[in-house]
């Protein structure tokens, strides 16, 4: 039986090991996918996912009031990635300009990676409701109706949060580029 996050958290805080096992089952794949897409390194993705769960073990009691365990885990995941990128700058890729196709592909990949990093940092500047909506919809893969139930708001409101989040992100990225 699939339990909701609230009851899983309650049971875990009471000391139920099965609840923790179910939390891992529910989120390990999503977190691994998230980390893998963000850093393209399978081993690093595993280490980061483990780190997220370790932080959950130590900080679960502070989770009361969060909309879902997932939003908390992804918030932690974002922090871990930002810290990691701060400590280890990605290696520079030498582009062989004589090969036009390789050069344009490499440029594209670099741009994609930069955009990913910029979005990651910019998410932290969004209001909580917009951050939660983004994480629940894109990272966790919930439907709009499910998010409405979790965030206790209407379908239109969920769409609005998602839309405003993307508009705000575009604005933050533009300001970043213009050095505002």
């Amino acid at each position, binding site marked *: 039986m699939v339990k909701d996050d609230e009851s899983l958290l309650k049971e875990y805080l009471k000391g139920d090991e099965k609840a923790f096992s179910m939390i891992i089952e529910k989120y390990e794949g999503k977190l691994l*996918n998230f980390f893998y897409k963000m850093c393209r390194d399978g081993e690093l993705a595993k280490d980061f996912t483990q780190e997220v769960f370790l932080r959950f073990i130590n900080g679960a009691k502070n989770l009361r009031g969060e909309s879902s365990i997932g939003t908390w885990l992804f918030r932690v995941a974002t922090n871990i990635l930002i810290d990691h990128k701060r400590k280890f700058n990605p290696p520079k890729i030498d582009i062989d300009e004589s090969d036009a196709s390789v050069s344009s592909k490499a440029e594209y990949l670099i741009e994609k990676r930069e955009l990913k990093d910029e*979005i990651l940092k910019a998410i932290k500047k969004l209001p909580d409701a917009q951050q939660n909506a983004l994480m629940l*919809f894109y990272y966790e893969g919930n439907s709009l109706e499910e998010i409405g139930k979790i965030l206790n708001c209407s379908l239109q409101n969920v769409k609005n949060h998602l839309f405003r989040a*993307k508009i705000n992100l575009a604005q933050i990225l533009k300001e970043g580029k213009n050095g505002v």
Partner: protein
Amino acid sequence: MECEKFEKFIFENPEATTLNGQFSQHIKECEKCEKLWEIQNEFAEFRLDQSKINLPLKTKSYLLRIAKNRSFEKFSRIEFIEDTFIFAIVVSTVLTGIVASFYQIVLNGGMQNRYIKMLFDFIKDNFSNFATSFSSLLGKESFVFLISVFLITFSLSFFFRVLNSEKKNIFSF
């Protein structure tokens, strides 16, 4: 006008990853909408791939072990206080019972030892109310005595257990 239509499309279709010809043309001409589309695509990529991958079993058992230890520590703290509480209740009840019975014996003339008699005569002379009331287990002084012994026993046993405990981490909340 095109921007409005495009934004409405993004609003209504947060998981869209393809555009029709009209919108494709529009994002080539409008930088703002192009950025919005780029961001939508970045996120939609996560939603598209919800393939089920798992952590290695070794990592999972490590995490479960850590969680179990954490939970054990938490419950040891509760047990520690519970044990001390039960110990104090037992000690204070037994002690109160002994003292009250002792009084009964002395008051009924059952205690012949002259030194003990002298001691109780002294108490009776100086603390007559206390002595009379203590002759019954339900007396007010018995209750005060019980509470005092309980508090003293609880505090002392808690203090000494903390000093001597191997579980030094009981305060590491």
